[in-house]
C-alpha cells in the first residue's frame, strides 16, 4: 500500500544527505574545541605545579609562577561583581516585575543588547575616558573592575530576568491577595524562588570577566609586579593580560610556561562555566512547578 515511488526515494535520499551534512557541521564545530583543549592540556600540563601557582614570576617573566596574576584576577572579578550584581539584579527586577511595555522599556532592552554587542576594546576606551581620567580612579583595580562590570552587566541582567520570569505568576498573585506590597512580594516570594537561577548568572559572569583582556589592559592591569595588590587603588597583574604579554611582548619565555598560563586560564573559565551549567540542569530537575 505504501510502496515508495522514485520521487519518495529521492526525497528520502535528500533528507539523509541533509541530516549527514548538518551532523558534519556539528562535528566540525565541536572537534576543534576538543583539539584545542587537549593540546593546551598536553603542552601546558607539565608546567602546572604548586610552585607554579603560588610563587611570583622571576627573571623577567621567563621563569617562576603566576601567583600575582592569579590573585589579581580574583581581585578584579570580585570588585567587578560587587559593582555589577546589585545594579544588574535591580535592572532585572525592574524589567521583569515592574516595566510596562512602553518605549522606555524597549530602549532599556536595546541598551542591554548594545552593551553586550559593543566591542570589548570600545569598553576599554570608555573605561580609560570615564573611570581612569574623568572620575580620577587612575589605572587601578577599581577602574578596571568598573569597566568589566559595565561590560558584563548584560550577563547578570539577562540571567536574572530569565529566572525571575520562571517564577509562576500565581505565586505573586497569591501574595498580593494577602495584602503584601509589590516589594514584599518580590522580597519574600519572587527572589527566594529564583535565587539559585540568579546565582547561575553570577557564576557565568565570573567566567566572563576572568577571561577578558582588552577592557583591563589600559585601565588597571600591568605586566610585571611581584607584590600582591593591597587596595582597589593598586595596579595588578591579571591572568588574561599575563598570557597576552608573555605570548606577544616578552621574548625568551619557555613555551611550556605560556601553555601553562593558557591552561590555568581556560581551566578556571571552563570550570566556572561547567559549574554554572550543571547547577542550571540540576535546578531544572528540581523544579516543583
Amino acid at each position, binding site marked *: 500500500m505504501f510502496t515508495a515511488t522514485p520521487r519518495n526515494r529521492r526525497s528520502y535520499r535528500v533528507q539523509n544527505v541533509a541530516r549527514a551534512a548538518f551532523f558534519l557541521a556539528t562535528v566540525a*564545530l565541536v572537534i576543534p574545541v576538543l583539539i584545542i583543549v587537549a593540546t593546551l592540556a598536553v603542552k601546558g600540563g607539565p608546567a602546572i605545579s604548586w610552585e607554579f601557582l603560588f610563587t611570583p614570576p622571576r627573571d623577567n617573566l621567563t621563569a617562576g609562577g603566576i601567583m600575582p596574576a592569579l590573585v589579581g584576577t580574583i581581585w578584579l572579578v570580585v570588585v567587578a561583581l560587587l559593582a555589577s550584581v546589585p*545594579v544588574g539584579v535591580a535592572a532585572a527586577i525592574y524589567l521583569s516585575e515592574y516595566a510596562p511595555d512602553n518605549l522606555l522599556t524597549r530602549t532599556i532592552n536595546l541598551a542591554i543588547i548594545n552593551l553586550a554587542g559593543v566591542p570589548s576594546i570600545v569598553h576599554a576606551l570608555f573605561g580609560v575616558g570615564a573611570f581612569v581620567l574623568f572620575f580620577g580612579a587612575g589605572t587601578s583595580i577599581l577602574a578596571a573592575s568598573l569597566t568589566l562590570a559595565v561590560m558584563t552587566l548584560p550577563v547578570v541582567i539577562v540571567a536574572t530576568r530569565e529566572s525571575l520570569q520562571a517564577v509562576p505568576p500565581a505565586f505573586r498573585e497569591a501574595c498580593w491577595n494577602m495584602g503584601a506590597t509589590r516589594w514584599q512580594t518580590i522580597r519574600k516570594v519572587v527572589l527566594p524562588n529564583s535565587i539559585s537561577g540568579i546565582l547561575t548568572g553570577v557564576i557565568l559572569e565570573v567566567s566572563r570577566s576572568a577571561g577578558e*583582556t582588552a577592557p583591563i589592559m589600559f585601565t588597571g592591569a600591568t605586566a610585571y609586579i611581584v607584590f600582591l595588590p593591597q587596595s582597589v587603588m593598586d595596579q595588578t597583574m591579571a591572568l588574561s593580560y599575563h598570557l597576552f604579554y608573555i605570548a606577544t611582548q616578552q621574548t625568551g619565555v619557555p613555551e611550556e610556561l605560556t601553555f601553562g598560563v593558557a591552561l590555568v586560564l581556560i581551566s578556571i573559565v571552563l570550570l566556572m562555566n561547567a559549574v554554572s551549567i550543571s547547577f542550571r540542569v540540576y535546578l531544572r530537575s528540581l523544579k516543583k512547578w
Partner: protein
Amino acid sequence: MTPVPRARLSADTAAMDRRDAAWYVDRIAQWLVFAGGVSAIVFIVGIFVFVTREGLDFVLGSLNLREFFGSIAWRPTSNNPTYGALALIVGTASVTGFAMLMSVPLSLGVALFIAEFATGKTRETLKILVEMLAAIPSVVWGFVGMSIMNPLIIETFDVPVGLNVMNAGLILGLMAAPIMTTIAEDALKAVPDSYREAAEALGATRWEVIWKVVIPASKNGILAAVLLGVGRGFGETMAVLMASGHAINLPTSPFDSVRALTATIAAELGDTVQGGNHWGALFTLGILLFVVTFVINLTADIVVRGIGKE
C-alpha cells in the same frame, strides 16, 4: 518565559495607598530598581559620550575624512603623521568576511541539526558544548592562533607566514559560531510545531519541512543571527590582534597579514601621549567601531521585531 500578567498592576493603585512603613519601603524599592533598569541606558550613552569626548579634538581639529577613509598610510608616530585607516578597515572586513564565509553555513547547519534532528540527551549535550565554545576567552583563542594554527598553516599551505587573514578568520569563525548557532536555533524553535505537522501530514520529508516551511518562517531570526555574528567578528580584539599578523596591508589573498581596527587601538593606546593627535585618532577609531556595531545591533533588533509583527 511566561510573562507576568498585567493584572498585577492593581497592586499599586490608589486603593493600595496605605502609607505605612511597608508602603514607603515599596516606593523606595520601586525607585531603586527603576534606577537599575535605566542604568543600562546611562551606560550605553556614557560609552558614546566618553569615547567621543576623548576623540572630539581630533575629529574637529585634524581629521581629514578623505585621508581617513581613502589612504592606507597609518603613520601616527612619524614626523609628519598621517591617519589613513583604509587598510585597517579592509583588514577588519577581510578577516570578518573570511570568518563569516566559514562560520555562517557551519553555524546554521549546527542550529538546524540541534533544533530539527537531534533529540533528548544529544541535543542537551550539543547545546552545552556550544555554550562551552562561547566561554573560551578571546586571549586564549589568540594564543591558539599563534601557537597551534600558525605552524599548521605554514606547513599545510607552504607559506612563509601563518599569522594572516586565514588564521584570524578561522579563529574568529569559531568564536562567532556559538552566538549565531544559539540565536538561529531560537528562531527555528519559535516556528510553531503545527506548521511542521501540517507539512508532514502532506507527506513532506523532514528535509522538505525544513527547507520549505521552517526556514522561510524563521528567515528573520536567521538573518538577525548572522548580523549578530558579523557584529561579534567585527568587534573582536585580542584574538585578531594576535592571529592576524598585525601588518598594515591591503590583502590580496587569505595568506596575507592584515591589521584590524580593534587591534590597532589595543596595540597602540598604551604607548600614546594622552590628549595628543594619535590618542584622538585611536578614540576616533573607537567611535567608528561603536557606531558600526550599534547600527548592526539595531538592525538585528528591528529584523527580529519584524517576526513579532507577522
